[in-house]
């Protein structure tokens, strides 16, 4: 097909619509290069410490809510599907389908964010927040041959982590082959990486909403403008792709079981009250 077959309003600085659309698509790919390097940086830092502290990172992973993460994975995949359907709808000129699919994508993305927020909240409830806060805790120590109880300052995070791991992972037994300060390092990465991902999701949903508004106003009546949806989808797919790596790196690297995941998810959405 030659350029002349692509029609539509051309911006002042382009010669034809074909050039304009190819440029827009190319621009998004260039932007994605930047995004790859951006996430690449934090993934690289993560990997470096993962090499140094495998046990501690596994312990940190064990304390995460893998149930929500698993469900979220499928939500994102489904949203990737719906945005692809939206492209097709715009391509064939099906305005209703376009809006429906855009809306579905937004809903799925928002559902992801909702669950993610719930997960953050649960982490907060459990006290899995890195920080320097300390609490006084009674500890039994041996002094002059007899056992006495004294109060010592323990980082809040250490206690919370031990509690969560006891409940989720070691079936009520205390178990410590990790260094809590290094697990805190894992949690720094957990919050930074998922936080950056969430930020990208929010921006994506914003852009999708804008496209939905455009779609309602008939912007996509020019079929050639399906490329704008396609360009948006590139970004959305990329965000999906980042999650595909976050899942094994953060959630799946610790010991988990499927029944635990199901239980965690039920608890998170209030269907069960778990071991609290």
């Amino acid at each position, binding site marked *: 097909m030659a350029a002349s077959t692509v029609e539509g309003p051309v911006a*002042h*600085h*382009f*010669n034809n619509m074909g*050039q304009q659309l*190819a*440029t827009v698509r*190319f*621009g998004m790919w*260039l*932007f994605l*290069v*930047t*995004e790859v*390097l*951006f*996430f*690449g*940086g*934090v993934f*690289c*830092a993560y990997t*470096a*410490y993962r090499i*140094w*502290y495998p046990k*501690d990172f596994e312990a940190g992973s064990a304390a995460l809510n893998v149930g929500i993460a698993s469900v979220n994975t499928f939500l994102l995949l489904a949203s990737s599907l719906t945005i692809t359907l939206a492209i097709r709808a715009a391509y064939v000129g099906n305005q209703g389908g376009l809006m429906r699919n855009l809306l579905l994508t937004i809903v799925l993305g928002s559902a992801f964010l909702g669950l993610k927020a719930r997960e953050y909240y649960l982490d907060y409830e459990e006290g899995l927040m*890195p*920080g*320097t806060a300390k609490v006084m805790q009674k500890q039994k120590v041996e002094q002059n041959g007899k056992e006495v109880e004294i109060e010592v300052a323990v980082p809040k995070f250490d206690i919370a982590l031990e509690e969560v791991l006891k409940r989720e992972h070691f079936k009520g037994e205390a178990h410590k082959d990790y*260094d809590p*300060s*290094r697990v*805190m*390092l894992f949690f*720094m*990465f957990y*919050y*930074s990486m998922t936080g*950056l991902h969430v930020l990208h999701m929010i921006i994506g949903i914003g852009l999708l909403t804008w496209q939905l508004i455009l779609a309602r106003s008939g912007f996509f009546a020019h079929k050639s403008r399906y490329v704008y949806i396609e360009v948006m989808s590139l970004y959305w797919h990329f965000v999906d792709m980042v999650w595909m790596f976050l899942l094994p790196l953060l959630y799946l690297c610790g010991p988990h079981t499927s029944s635990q995941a199901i239980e965690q998810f039920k608890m998170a959405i209030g269907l069960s009250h778990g071991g609290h």
Partner: protein
Amino acid sequence: MADILLEPARLDYTPQMLPEPEVSFEKHPEHKHYLNHEYGLLSWLLTVDHKRIGLMYLVSVSIFFMFGGIAAGLVRTNLITPTGAILELDQYNKAFTAHGTIMLFLFLIPVIPGVLGNFLVPMMIGAKDMAFPKLNLASYYVWAAGALFFVWQLIVGGLDTGWTLYPPYSSKYSHTSVMYAGLGIFITGFSSILTALNIIATVHKMRCPGMTWGRLPLFVWAMYATSVIQLLGTPVIAVTVVMLAVERMVGVGIFDPNLGGDPILFQHMFWFYSHPAVYIMILPGMGVINEVLTCFARKNIFGYKAVAWSSVGIAVVGFLVWGHHMFLAGQGYYLAMVFALLTMLVAVPSAIKVFNWTATLYGGSITFQAPMLFALGFIILFTIGGVTGLFLGTLGTDIHLHDTYFVIAHFHYTMVGGMMFAWQAGLHFWWPKMTGKMYSDFWSRLAAIVMLVGFALTFLPQFAVGYLGMPRRYPNYPPEFQIYNVLSTAAAYVQGIGYLMPIFYLGYSLFAGKAAGNNPFKATGLEWQTSSPPSPHNFETTPQVYFGPYEYAVADGLKIIPLNDGKIHDIVHEDPDLVGTTPKEATHGS
């Protein structure tokens, strides 16, 4: 087509495009150009015209250059006496940090891409605008917002970490506004990415008919290579700064050794960007030099392909050498060796460029107007800057010279001697195109000489004092080094005067300068084939390119030297490529 070549009497150069009806303001004063087709503040603030955005960058970076220059003046003045002449210790630390951060993030990185890149790249490739004009404007405002954070950071007390922001000092021990500076770096970095993206997309997708890769002006090649670096490197420093900010905010962290973190990781990720960033700062300058030298020597560039590909080579290999900033920082021994080897490789393309520039002058017909003087100054200074880099890239010699004034002198010779001189060369070269006005020949030449002498004398003593071991970032130093520092400071004032001079004669030319005409230097590039100042959409009709960028010698000189095994012939009569009847590109660098 051949007729224009047979008509050398009219032009003493061969433009890349066929002559179009000239738009001349002397003849048509009512003609609208990009400066006067709209009026009012909003027409500037909301413009998506790449030329106007370029000028907005010009004004902004000049202001920040002044800030950075004032900080430099404070630093140099303080160093007159061994115990610090005017500043307290922490004031000095803030002054040199302000100098470093402002000059790097707000001047050197945006200056040529922002001003000349914006202004010239679309014109040089025959496009009406950048690929994404709105993004271009947005990227200016993003940059300005980032710059505001730097200004705010200065107002609330300044930063004292050095521009390198090494943790754990920056993450834990510094009590200054690291967060604002970090935000500034992040945001200006984002702008840098957007500009780069725009330029790459423009070069790929917006070239006019006939503008093949082999006919791109070398400035465009250099900008392209620069943009590749910006696109690939900047996100990494952005995420590094994010991690640093998280660490500083939460109080526990990723680079803090007390938690099992590793401060060296920060250095790796920082230099992953910041080493290529020095090429972001120098490559556009090299591009400018290609344009200026060829024009004032009336010559084709010597070895077009070598110069073009050396830019790309620098962009790629430049990413593999960052570890030479960390030879003594505690990185692995074997890694240091690999980095040292690659560093030696990255020195080669720069050497190639210098030799090619020198060879370009051979056989020319050279005139010495201000842009040419700046360009020659560039070669002189950049050569010194380049060879002194070898001392620092060699593992053994770096041990002693690391973090001394030798390093300071080296990178000022490349950054200021290189980029600053290239910037001045470019500004003087394209000033008539941007404004339509010509500046004073005498004052501009004088400024070039004052800057050159002042600059060379400022930093030569620093090589000596660096070899003696004077560490950088020292407000107080052993008294036996005083004489070197006094010399350096004295020359710095001379240099400062040199930088002030263009403000006056360029400013004067704006109001009282004589009209420059469309092509005062008789240059060949597409940007010269349109009116000065250009019309809002650059060209009246889409240009069609028939020649390579530097065919200065063709029009009046049919003397062709078969240097290279006789492959180059009399192009007018025999070279079918150049007159454009076959799909091959015009011969270059054969």
